[in-house]
């Protein structure tokens, strides 16, 4: 094995040697440098391999042949080898990435580059305090040198700021070191640790100075203005190095020296880390320059890692796993993003839409962004999971809250940025070129993220349980993305179908119901995909991602699996939603609410895990502490997906702007995930209350108000898909209400309504999607009279709205009937009355939907519109068939569901006599009603038809019009603001109070961020002052409080 000392020798030798080649072929010089980097990487990787596989012992390397403390020694242990490998791999790829630049700028910069990584390596390995200082200075100076790769004015002035700042920081460090030397009489770190300086007079402050200097090297908020300027102005390749490599080294120093500090240093680091994480991310949301944004994010992420290290007392032996997970993700993703920034060259995040010209770059960017936020299957997901679990387990609730808050804020700007990239306007933006050397590292890092994600999942203790098959299927679909739609569609349907076939025997109870909704429903909706032509790039992997998530929910046996699937589903659905034309802001609010909800779920699970050793979902059944809090957290989390009132504002836009066949997926299928979550939650946790307040009663009210508000909003919409979206909100309100009843009938209603909602919402969204497909607008009042052009679609919509409105004989009535019985059973009349009121309001939007689009006056420009595409009609008519079946034979739907519920709610079940359902209060014979109604209808119709068989067909303007006649279809079609008088009375209910509230929240956060970031006024002196103030403030905090005690 090659000794680590050769890293220094090789690097320095190369650096010095390069001096001979000033004028020689620069590519050759670069090759030499690359060779050195590769060799360094090789050495560190080789050690890492040894540590991982061969039980390698930690090795001390003595220089000059003397033992420490008399000489400087290096240490190569497991942790060192990991960090070295990370740093060197990053160095290697950075070098490749910077190939062109380094070559053009000459040998000097190559020297600086090699020396930088040498410095970082030694910083990691050295066990001598002063030596650490020297090599820290080397790496700092080298970075300042690399900043000059961009010889712009900006870069120069930021380099100067960096110099001033690092000068002060290293000065402080040096003062600390020399004082420590005085007290401990040695510079060997082990000696310093052994001499317990924190108990020595003056030693406390000396170690504090070292600590604060090391922390300052990590650019803590708010003493980090200089770093941000560097991130913004330096070449992105250098930004990647600063953000990843030097921060990694910095983290390791902190880690290495921690034992030398007082125990309360942990708290200081944790406070600073958390403050940095939250603060930096907060300021990031106001940022619109890409590289600076990445700077804020980098600082935030490093703050988080710092916080994790500081939280070691809480996290115990999980610290390393968490820190590594977060750090690794940060390094890979941030470096990747910086590199992309270098390729795309758009300063403003709004201009990142150019990245779309190469969809693969977009995939890379998505990978990095989602990895940063902590989505599965990336390492950060598992790390964050462990972090939150451990924090909850050791009562670190405040930390938990702040970390989740910070993560959430980071999500805001990261997803906004990603949204701009996916959806921004990219017409007038300049082209960019992709060089292999720039893209290769990013690709490898993205692959690395996935690989490490997989690796971390094997480390979480439930290794191998994750179902990676669907994920592989996603990859496969991505690989065949160049094929035309019909092939991919067939493969997708086959894939989902096959999977359903394989898991079907294992599904039981409510999992079966939801499994069928998710997967069979998915297949059905996918059928509509045949209507699309071309390639539909990216659609299939994303769709399958969502279905994989949904599938995971069904299959989840542990909380981790559940959360994994939940996040996967969120990501997939986010991508699907953002594919819509104008869906950028809506997708953003969707993902933010989802992420927020997911964090609540995470927190809920974490609290539930307290004092429980298993990860099984059953922990919810025997929660030890905070049961009502857990219930509330989880319920709210799930209700972000069911879009209950207050958490609903993401839904209308997201569903409305999505593509024609995506809307049914996200509306009819995806929302059920929330219902599924609630079902699991309620089954496991049972009744909960805060004191005397029954949470379920509150839930019932939430459901009822959601229903009323959702339907009311739907009635006043002008946009057809938005109307349907609000209708979904309303309908999910019924479902939540039904679940909250916690009785057999309530649940029967809820689950059957879920099934029904799936059916008619798929039907309606596909039908309306077909209409929108043809007429290219969603504004209903711009349509009209389409029944003559699209009769089949009309029939679908007609049946759909009859189901929604719950009018017998169709199956929607079944749900209403059960709900009535359930309410009478339970006795919660007021929310129930609201629910029924909502049911009546449904008539308003139902009628409006069908009238404004299909009836009334056909518009000029729609005179030649064709029927919706065949493949959009196919799933509709399949669903129609099922609806008719369930309507005529209600027990084919309700009886099995009832049987599923029997074990949980044995009382109050329906009694079935054939198709006659009998409850404690009433009875209902769906089949008979169907026959009677159809019988009467047919008879009357036959008679009328006989009477008026010779009726003259007329055209649309042949109406009695007070002796006049209509002049334009637009002015004759009564459609806009259809329920004006109703709005006059009840319109106050639909003032967007909640949207305004969230808008205010968002604006408030932005305003605060904007105010705070003014401290970064660009003046190097002020930055210096910040650093000193930072020291002073934390001195006061530490010594006014608890340090050294």
């Amino acid at each position, binding site marked *: 094995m090659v000794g680590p000392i050769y890293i220094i020798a090789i690097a320095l030798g190369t650096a010095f040697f390069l001096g001979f080649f000033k004028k020689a072929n620069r590519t050759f010089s670069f090759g030499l440098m690359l060779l050195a980097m590769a060799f360094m990487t090789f050495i560190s990787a080789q050690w890492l391999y040894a540590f991982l596989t061969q039980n390698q012992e930690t090795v001390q390397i003595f220089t000059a042949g003397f033992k420490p403390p008399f000489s400087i020694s290096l240490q190569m242990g497991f942790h060192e080898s990991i960090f070295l490998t990370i740093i060197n791999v990053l160095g290697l790829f950075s070098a490749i990435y910077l190939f062109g630049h380094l070559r053009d700028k000459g040998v000097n910069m190559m020297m600086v580059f090699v020396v930088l990584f040498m410095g970082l390596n030694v910083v990691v390995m050295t066990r001598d305090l002063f030596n650490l200082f020297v090599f820290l200075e080397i790496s700092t100076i080298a970075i300042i040198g690399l900043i000059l790769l961009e010889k712009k004015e900006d870069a120069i002035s930021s380099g100067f700021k960096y110099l001033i700042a690092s000068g002060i920081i290293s000065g402080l460090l040096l003062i600390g070191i020399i004082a420590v030397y005085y007290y401990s009489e040695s510079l060997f770190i082990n000696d310093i640790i052994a001499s317990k300086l924190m108990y020595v007079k003056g030693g406390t402050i000396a170690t504090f100075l070292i600590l604060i200097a090391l922390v300052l090297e990590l650019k803590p908020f708010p003493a980090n203005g200089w770093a941000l300027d560097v991130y913004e102005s330096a070449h992105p390749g250098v930004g990647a190095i600063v953000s990843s490599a030097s921060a990694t080294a910095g983290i390791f120093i902190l880690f290495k020296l921690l034992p030398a500090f007082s125990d309360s240093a942990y708290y200081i680091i944790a406070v600073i880390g958390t403050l940095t994480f939250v603060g930096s991310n907060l300021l990031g949301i106001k940022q619109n320059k890409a590289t600076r944004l990445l700077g804020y994010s980098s600082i935030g992420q490093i703050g988080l890692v710092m916080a994790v290290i500081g939280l070691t007392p809480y996290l115990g032996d999980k610290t390393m796993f968490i820190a590594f997970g977060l750090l690794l993700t940060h390094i890979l993703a941030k470096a990747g993003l910086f590199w992309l920034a270098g390729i795309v060259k758009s300063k403003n995040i709004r201009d990142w839409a150019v990245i779309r010209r190469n969809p693969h770059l977009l995939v890379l960017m998505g990978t990095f962004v989602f990895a940063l936020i902590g989505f599965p299957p990336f390492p950060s997901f598992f790390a964050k999971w462990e972090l939150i679990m451990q924090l909850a387990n050791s009562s670190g609730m405040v930390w938990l809250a702040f970390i989740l808050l910070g993560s959430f804020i980071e999500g805001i700007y990261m997803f906004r940025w990603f949204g701009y990239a996916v959806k921004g306007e990219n017409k007038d933006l300049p082209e960019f070129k992709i060089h292999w050397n720039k893209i290769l590292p990013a690709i490898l890092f993205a692959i690395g993220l996935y690989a490490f994600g997989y690796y971390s999942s094997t480390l979480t203790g439930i290794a191998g349980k994750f179902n990676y098959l669907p994920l592989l299927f996603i990859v496969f679909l991505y690989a065949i993305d160049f094929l035309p739609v019909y092939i991919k569609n067939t493969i997708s349907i086959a894939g989902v179908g096959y999977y359903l076939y394989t898991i079907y025997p294992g599904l039981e109870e409510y999992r079966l119901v939801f499994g069928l909704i998710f997967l069979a429903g998915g297949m059905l909706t996918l059928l509509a995909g045949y209507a699309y032509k071309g390639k539909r790039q990216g659609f299939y992997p994303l769709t399958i991602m969502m279905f994989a998530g949904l599938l995971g929910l069904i299959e989840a046996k542990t909380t981790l699996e559940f959360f994994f699937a939940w996040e996967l589903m969120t990501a997939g659905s986010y991508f699907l939603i953002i594919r819509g034309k104008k869906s950028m802001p809506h997708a953003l609010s969707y993902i933010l609410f989802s992420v927020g909800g997911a964090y609540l779920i995470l927190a809920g699970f974490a609290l539930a895990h307290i004092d429980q050793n298993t990860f099984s979902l059953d922990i919810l059944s025997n929660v030890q502490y905070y049961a009502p809090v857990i219930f509330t957290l989880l319920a709210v989390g799930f209700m972000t997906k069911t879009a209950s009132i207050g958490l609903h504002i993401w839904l209308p836009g997201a569903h409305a702007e999505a593509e024609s066949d995506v809307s049914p997926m996200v509306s009819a299928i995806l929302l059920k995930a929330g219902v599924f979550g609630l079902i699991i939650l309620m089954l496991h946790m049972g009744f909960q209350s805060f004191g005397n307040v029954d949470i379920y009663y509150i839930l019932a009210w939430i459901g009822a108000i959601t229903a009323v508000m959702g339907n009311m909003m739907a009635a006043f919409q002008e946009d057809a898909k938005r109307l349907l979206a609000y209708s979904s909100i309303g309908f999910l309100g019924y479902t939540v209400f039904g679940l909250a009843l916690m009785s057999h009938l309530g649940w029967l209603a809820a689950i059957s309504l879920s099934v029904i909602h799936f059916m008619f919402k798929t039907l309606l969204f596909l039908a309306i999607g077909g209409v929108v497909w043809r007429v290219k*607008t969603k504004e209903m009042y711009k349509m009209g009279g389409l029944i003559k052009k699209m009769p089949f679609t009309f029939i679908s919509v007609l049946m759909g709205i009859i189901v929604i409105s719950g009018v017998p004989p169709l199956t929607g009535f079944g749900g209403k009937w059960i709900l009535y019985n359930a309410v009478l059973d339970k006795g919660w009349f007021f929310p129930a009355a609201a629910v029924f009121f909502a049911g009546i309001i449904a008539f308003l939007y139902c009628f409006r939907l069908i009238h404004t689009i299909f009836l009334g006056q056909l518009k000029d*420009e729609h005179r030649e*519109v064709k029927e919706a595409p065949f493949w959009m009609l196919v799933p509709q008519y399949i669903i129609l068939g099922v609806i008719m079946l369930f309507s005529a034979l209600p027990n084919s739907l309700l009886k099995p569901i009832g049987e599923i519920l029997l074990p949980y709610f044995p009382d109050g079940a329906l009694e079935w006599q054939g198709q006659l359902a009998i409850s404690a209060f009433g009875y209902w014979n769906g089949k008979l009603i169907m026959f009677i109604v159809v019988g009467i209808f047919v008879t009357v119709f036959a008679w009328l038809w006989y009477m008026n068989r010779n009726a003259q067909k*007329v055209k*649309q303007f042949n109406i009695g019009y007070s*002796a006049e*006649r209509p002049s334009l279809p637009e002015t004759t079609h009564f459609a806009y603001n259809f329920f004006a008088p109703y709005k006059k009375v009840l319109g106050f209910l639909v003032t967007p109070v909640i949207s305004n509230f969230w808008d205010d929240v968002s604006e408030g956060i932005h305003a605060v961020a904007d105010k705070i970031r003014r401290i970064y006024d660009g003046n190097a002196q002020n930055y210096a002052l910040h650093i000193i103030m930072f020291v002073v403030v934390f001195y006061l905090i530490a010594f006014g409080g608890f340090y050294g005690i």
Partner: protein
Amino acid sequence: MKEDFKKRTVISPDGKPIEIDPVKDYFSDAKPKVYKPAHPVIEKFANWARANSLWVLGFGTGCGAIEMRPLMTPRFDAYRYGIQWRPTPRQSSVFVISGYLSVKTLKRVVRTYEQMQNPKFVIALGSCTINGGMYWDSYNTINRLDHYLPVDVYVAGCMPRPESLLTGFEELKKIIKEGRGEGANKYAENFDWYKANQKKIIKDWDMPDYNW
């Protein structure tokens, strides 16, 4: 011709231009049909019902219109004779055209008449409808209504009292019961003649020949 009824080109959602001829595309251009009376027995019963259920559509641009309103009041109470007012030509069977008709209003009258369903009856109220009355030499009133529409009953007078109108209704009833109330069929049979007369008066003819 009104601007809205001229031919226009619109762009379909697919981006193709579409030619729209509103008069053709938005109005049915079918010709009126002659409906043969049913079997005499049935027809007689039906005529009885038609006579006892006179749903009136009033056309009141002239002074005579004011004489129609009192029929609804307790003093005259036309309801007891099975006479009721309907607000729409679709549902009405009797068209009461009161007073003088200008060229402009004739167009509306024709349109409204054509929108009523067969069988339909016309009562012309006042002298103006017979010979133009005091407006006989006006440049823009018509003089004789039955050149343009088949009129079943003329109620003379300038203006006729409500009692006269009631008498007119009674007369109409008689006509219907006798099976002579076939104005609608007459209109369809002599459609070309009526149209020619109408078009002679109405210069800017911008509607289909028959307004369904």
